[in-house]
């Protein structure tokens, strides 16, 4: 009898306990990393039965999801606990206090495993605020069959590209065939393209001392080349100034372009069975200008995962985060879904040796350049807007290249003054 009451009490207490010690909500899109999320959620819940994770699917289109995050983070909503952010948002959100610093929640070893230049994008005040999940970048796709037909080498410099393009278009003599297509609408992708050209000429957003110098001579030349590509050499269709990435991909897929400069997502649809150019294309690093062979001309993008500072389950969220971005998971995502890993040691694993495409992407990332989002923090959206607007002005020939870049420079100096 003496034990019955305590036993009963314990039994009651045990059954009254909540089923889960932590219920987490993860917000991430399903088009970008979906299969990996499916795999990892099930696995993690099996290993940690006291944690339940709800996958809140959001749009993969950054603009759509940003609307959602801005609204809920401003209102300090406790969910989602973990959410995916575009690389260019990481620094901005960190500065606004919208991403919980991870150094206290994760051990150093975990954090140090990641690619340092990617990690820099989410580091503010020496604290890391989000972990990179997967990366992508801009590559240069070409029609290998046409290069063969006209006995051309794979172009390395932009001058090579112009020459090759002219040969091919003259040879094909098809008014609906274009030499070069890309996504030059007034979008973020345009800034990324510009960075590729600028860096390819030894220029860039910052100068050697780290000061903003968008109107440097190297940049002016590179931008002028972009303008000439459109209006002098006429390599590209008029619609390039209206094109989003998928529009450019469609043209190339229809067999109507020799060269395509977009992110790696196009590889899958272009090589699909029903693609008219399957087996007829390949890709290389984005070209550079004469004399700048080691230019970092692969503009990078990617997605990070962070923790909501209003979350009520920060430690549980951090544990999940560490597991989700761990080396094993990234390796699997690389091998099965072709997602570029963000932990350098993954590339050395022997399981990766079979995946030639990813290895090739990875080699291009060695020449990677990131946008100045970490440096400008919460002002990055305005920085990007200024650049997009002025570059577009130059491309539409509303301003000369010098005018446009000088205007951009003065606006940027005013903006970033404090």
């Amino acid at each position, binding site marked *: 009898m003496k034990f019955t009451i305590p036993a009963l009490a314990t039994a009651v207490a045990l059954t009254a306990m909540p089923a889960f010690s932590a219920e987490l909500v993860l917000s991430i*899109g399903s088009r970008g990393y979906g299969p990996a999320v499916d795999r990892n959620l099930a696995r993690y819940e099996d290993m940690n039965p006291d944690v339940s994770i709800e996958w809140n*699917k959001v749009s993969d289109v950054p603009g759509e999801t940003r609307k*959602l995050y801005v609204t809920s983070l401003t209102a300090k909503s406790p969910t989602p606990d973990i959410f995916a952010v575009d690389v260019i948002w990481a620094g901005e959100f960190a500065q606004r206090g919208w991403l919980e610093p991870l150094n206290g929640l994760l051990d150093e070893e975990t954090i140090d495993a990641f690619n340092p230049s990617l990690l820099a994008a989410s580091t503010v005040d020496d604290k890391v605020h989000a972990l990179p999940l997967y990366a992508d970048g801009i590559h240069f796709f070409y029609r290998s069959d046409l290069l063969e037909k006209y006995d051309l080498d794979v172009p390395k410099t932009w001058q090579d590209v112009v020459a090759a393009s002219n040969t091919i278009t003259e040879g094909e003599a098809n008014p609906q065939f274009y030499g070069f297509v890309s996504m030059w609408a007034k979008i973020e992708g345009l800034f990324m393209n510009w960075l590729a050209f600028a860096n390819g000429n030894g220029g860039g957003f910052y100068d050697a001392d780290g000061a903003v110098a968008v109107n440097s001579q190297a940049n002016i030349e590179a931008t002028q080349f972009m303008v000439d590509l459109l209006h002098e050499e006429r390599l590209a269709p008029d619609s390039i100034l209206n094109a989003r990435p998928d529009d450019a991909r469609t043209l190339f897929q*229809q067999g109507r372009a020799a060269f395509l400069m977009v992110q790696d*997502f196009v590889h899958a649809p272009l090589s699909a069975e*029903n693609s*008219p150019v399957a087996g007829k294309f390949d890709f290389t690093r984005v070209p550079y200008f004469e004399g700048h062979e080691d230019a970092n001309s692969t503009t990078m993008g990617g997605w990070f995962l962070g923790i909501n500072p209003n979350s009520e389950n920060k430690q549980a969220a951090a544990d999940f985060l560490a597991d989700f971005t761990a080396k094993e998971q990234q390796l699997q995502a690389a091998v099965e879904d072709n997602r570029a890993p963000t932990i350098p040691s993954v590339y050395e694993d022997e399981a990766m040796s079979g995946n030639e495409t990813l290895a090739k992407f990875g080699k291009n990332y060695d020449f990677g350049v990131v946008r100045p989002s970490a440096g400008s923090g919460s002002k990055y959206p305005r920085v990007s807007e200024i650049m997009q607007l002025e570059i577009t002005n130059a491309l539409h020939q509303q301003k000369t290249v010098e005018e446009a870049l000088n205007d951009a420079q003065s606006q940027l100096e005013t903006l970033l003054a404090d």
Partner: protein
Amino acid sequence: MKTRPRFGLYALVILSVVISFLPIIWLILTSLKTTEGIYAWPPQYLPQPFTLKNYINIFTNSPELLLYVVNSFIVALGCTVLALSFGGMAGYALSRLGMRRAGVLMVLILAVSMFPPVSLLPSLFQNFLSLGLLNTYAGLIIAHTGLFLPFTVWMLASYFATLPAEIEEAARMDGMGVFRIFWSIVIPLSWPGFVATGLIVFIFSWNEFPLALVLMTQNAMRTAPVGISLYPGEYAFPWETISTATVLAIVPILVITAIFQKQIVGGLTAGAGK
């Protein structure tokens, strides 16, 4: 008794129908094409081959689309019922009961509807969060009702205004209360107005996007337009899936439109002329 040839009339009608239908026909044709067909150059006008693969894929890969359509239906129906009831009463009171400062109130109601909904997002979300109304049918229904009430009030008021006053006067003389007059006389007489307004509000609610996006974040509670916005990838825009999903999402609207068409056609013509 028209002796003029009806040729011109029919020609105009056919032209209007074709132009109105064109993009929708294009959407339906797209959903019936294979991927190669969709991106083919020169463009394929008719599907060759014709395929139902896209529809099958949607049902097998994204059965949640049906759930989203049901959610949209619930929200739109709730919003329409509330808007017509509240709006009908308010519209009647402000246009026919001779109340003081009715005009001022009407203008105020109109004025507050002039703010772009997108700018209301942050504060609405915050308020709903604290009230626990996020991810509830009631929450989104009330939000939509608020959005569309001004329109409803004005529309119905304008229909009420076309009714001749004598009938109501007569009923008042007979000692009928306001509510009875409204219910048994005014509503039946202005029925086409109610149907037209209700249809419009239903479609407004169905297609509404920004509020539905932020107020219903749980997967199970999403509405159709928000659900469809999940199909595009970060860069890719799969027309196969999206055109199919859109066709499926608008089927309920088409059905409802078809049903109520008969009403508007003039089953019960308003107007005291009868």
